[in-house]
């Protein structure tokens, strides 16, 4: 047997061994690798990846109660209520810890703005800072305070969260939520700083890019356009991105382009209030109040308290020369503003 043949046989043997080893790789080791990957994904707050890995893991091991709890938490954080329910119920069926089950229900409430259990969760976060559940709680609390329109408290929670020196991905997300808190307080400069810092850490945090673009749409439409373009390329919320892009173009005086962009969205989604209002604004800027009127009427049917729709409808009626109706609509707007009026005297 020549040397060359012997070498060939050795390679074949090696490959065979490799395939066999891969085929018969111990189940426990693979499970361990998966769990490690899940941990890493969660630590980095790559929830989409974590969700994928958990689904894969549970396909092989549906009896892993702890994995179902993780999956329920992850689904909740991704706002996937159906999946969260399914996994949480399975966790209970598998005899999961009732306290953990209860805590998850509390966090779910917190996250959606029901803050009845928030003080307890916050207490746990400060008293047991090393509890592994603390980041989940801080996230639910921050989001809850934002949902409950208590942005100042949300920012305070992010102070606590940031002091824990969260991992890169998580840190980006905290900064994003913090930016939302500042934005809701009309502190645009600090909001922009947070959004920009978050995107330096995690450039593809699309929710953050979108939030940044939405703020810049008013402040700096030229820059906002570049962010919307990135989002469009990423396939992120196509209708919302189109509405935002049209808004930028309108602010830049590119009314023809804005109109061409927004019209198909309104045609395809006649109940998209944001699209209807943006299209109406383009109409009004093009001095076509007759085109704007039906869009604004539709928007107000769908969302009677939408401030911008109400504002534009006053403008539209006035531009149409229907003064009496414009005055009535202005009075409605005045009452709406009074409802929204903030105690610090700033007009919303």
């Amino acid at each position, binding site marked *: 047997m020549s040397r060359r043949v012997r070498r060939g046989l050795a390679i074949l043997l*090696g490959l065979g061994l490799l395939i066999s080893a891969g085929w018969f790789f111990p189940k426990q080791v693979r499970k361990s690798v998966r769990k490690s990957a899940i941990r890493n994904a969660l630590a980095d707050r790559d929830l989409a990846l974590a969700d994928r890995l958990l689904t894969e893991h549970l396909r092989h091991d549906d009896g892993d109660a702890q994995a179902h709890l993780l999956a329920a938490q992850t689904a909740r954080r991704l706002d996937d209520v159906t999946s969260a329910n399914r996994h949480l119920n399975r966790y209970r069926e598998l005899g999961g810890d009732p306290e953990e089950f209860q805590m998850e229900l509390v966090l779910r409430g917190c996250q959606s703005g029901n803050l009845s259990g928030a003080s307890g969760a916050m207490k746990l976060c400060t008293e047991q800072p090393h509890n592994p559940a603390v980041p989940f709680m801080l996230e639910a609390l921050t989001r809850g305070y934002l949902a409950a329109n208590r942005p100042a408290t949300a920012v305070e929670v992010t102070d606590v969260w940031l002091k824990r020196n969260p991992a890169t991905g998580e840190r980006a997300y905290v900064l994003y939520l913090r930016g939302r808190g500042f934005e809701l307080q009309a502190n645009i400069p600090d909001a922009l700083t947070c959004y920009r810092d978050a995107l330096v850490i995690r450039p593809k945090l699309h929710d953050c890019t979108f939030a940044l673009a939405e703020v810049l749409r008013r402040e700096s439409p030229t820059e906002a356009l570049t962010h919307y373009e990135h989002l469009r390329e990423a396939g992120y919320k196509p209708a919302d991105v189109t509405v935002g892009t049209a808004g930028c173009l309108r602010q830049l005086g590119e009314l023809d382009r804005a109109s061409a962009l927004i019209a198909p969205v309104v045609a395809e989604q006649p109940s998209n209030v944001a699209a209807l209002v943006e299209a109406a604004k383009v109409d009004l800027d093009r001095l076509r109040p007759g085109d704007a009127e039906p869009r604004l009427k539709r928007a107000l049917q769908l969302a009677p308290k939408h401030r911008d729709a109400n504002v534009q409808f006053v403008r539209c009626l006035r531009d149409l020369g229907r003064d009496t109706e414009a005055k009535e609509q202005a009075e409605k707007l005045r009452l709406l503003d009074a409802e929204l009026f903030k105690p610090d005297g700033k007009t919303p």
Partner: protein
Amino acid sequence: MSRSLLLFGLVALALIGSAVAVTFLLPDRQPAAPTKPTAPSTDADGPDIFENITGRTGIDFTYRNGDEANLFTILESLGGGVAAFDFDGDGKIDLFFTGGGSLDGKAISGRPGKLYRNLGDLKFQDVSQECGIAGLPLFYTHGVAVADYDCDGFSDLLITGWNRVMLLHNEPNPAGGRRFVDVTAKAGLTDTRWATAAAWGDFDGDGFPDLYICHYVDWSFANDPRCGIAERDVCPPQKFLALQHQIYRNAGNGTFEDKTAHAKLRPDGKGLGVVIVDTNGDGKADIYVANDGGDNFLYINRGGFAFEEVGLHAGVAIDDNGLYNGSMGVDAADYDGSGRVALWVTNFQGEVHALYRNAGEERFHHQSQAAGIGRIGRSFVGFGTSFTDFDRDGWEDIVVANGHVLRNPSGATYRQRPVFFHNEDHERRRQFRELPGKGGAYFRSEQVGRGLAVADLDNDGWPDLIISHQNDPVVVLRNVAGATLGRGNHWLRVALKGKRNCDLVGATLTLEVGGRKLTRFVKGGGSYLSASDARIDFGLGTADRVGTLTVLWPGGTAERFEGLSIDCESLIRQGEGK
């Protein structure tokens, strides 16, 4: 061999394991999204439009606001103005600057302003001493308004400031030349509240210019809250109550009658800018007021000193978001060839400067976005401003002096670059496109701009700029567009003379040229705390002849004037047309 095989297998396993891990477990590497603000477009390469000639004019003046006392008062945020007017009747535009003041403990002191006589060839001489300006009583000053209030053929000055105004009558100097004499008390202009912008215009048609004075807020050292979040800064106007503006009727005998109550002025404006112009073509001068942190006012002159405030109804009180703005500077012009006067307002950070297109019948459309104003973003705090056709292409451009009021603003800078908007055609309508840096070196620098006046200082037909700053020297910018952006364009200038030197604010001029009708308006006030060259300019583009000039005089009578020459100034006297 078996050991080699085992080793080989283990290495292969490790490699494959790593590959699997890399492929499936690590998140994708992603390119960085842009996070820095986009630089302004620089699509306007080419020579400059303005040349900074301050150093060779002989003008060396700085408005002082007293901020070195570190008291962070709202008083120091306003700044001062510029008046460009021919005080001695020699046909050359002279300059007056308000001086501001200083703060020491709770004492507010004034600094003298200066008057510079235009010697020609863009040289100026400080004549404050010989013209009586230097010896005037001092008070902390802001604005200046120009009119010949007694119709004697010479322009007088009204200076505004902290808790008083001062009326200066322009009269012959026994030593030769002219001098200014304080006639405030004699005129009855003795109000002692904080006065900012003022404008003259004949509201009742008697030929004598009447007076509108903006008052600001009820700040004083006795009402001086501490503001600022991390560190102390200037308070916003929302911390104070508005002061009632005033309107005075010129009795024609050197005295003024307070007609505020009769005119039913609104009590809630924190006024910083005012322009008087005929907005509805009825031959009567209307008043548009820019308020800081409240609705802007449009008073339509209904005759007999009766005014109707129609700002909200007309669509010029608030912006397109239904919100009032922090408004400072103001001007009015026909920017789109409609023949109607549009209104323009410079606003605070976070807002877009407002362009209200006149739709006729006392209606306006907020057209800032459609006109491309939004391109500059919302980080500017705009003050002095002017609609002027700087390149003589027949379309009114816009210039804005910017600079923050907060020493440590968030999301913006204290010093800001001025903005020059060129009026261009886009999508079949007029748009304003910033020519970044194209204004010249000054427009590439950051300043704390306040007052701004436009005047052709060398009578070359190309309007120049004079800008006042907070605690930095004033600048004089010579318009060199005749050799650059406006090369080959022509112009026509009209100096109007009313019967018996009567005031002509509210007049409308329409010139037929090259199939177009160019409409210009005689205005009172405008810009911010400043007064510009009162002569009326028409940029003609490349047209080398003009048709009829129609003047609609205040009161509603019209006259036509033919045979006007281009590239020169013509004197048009009321009653000498057809």
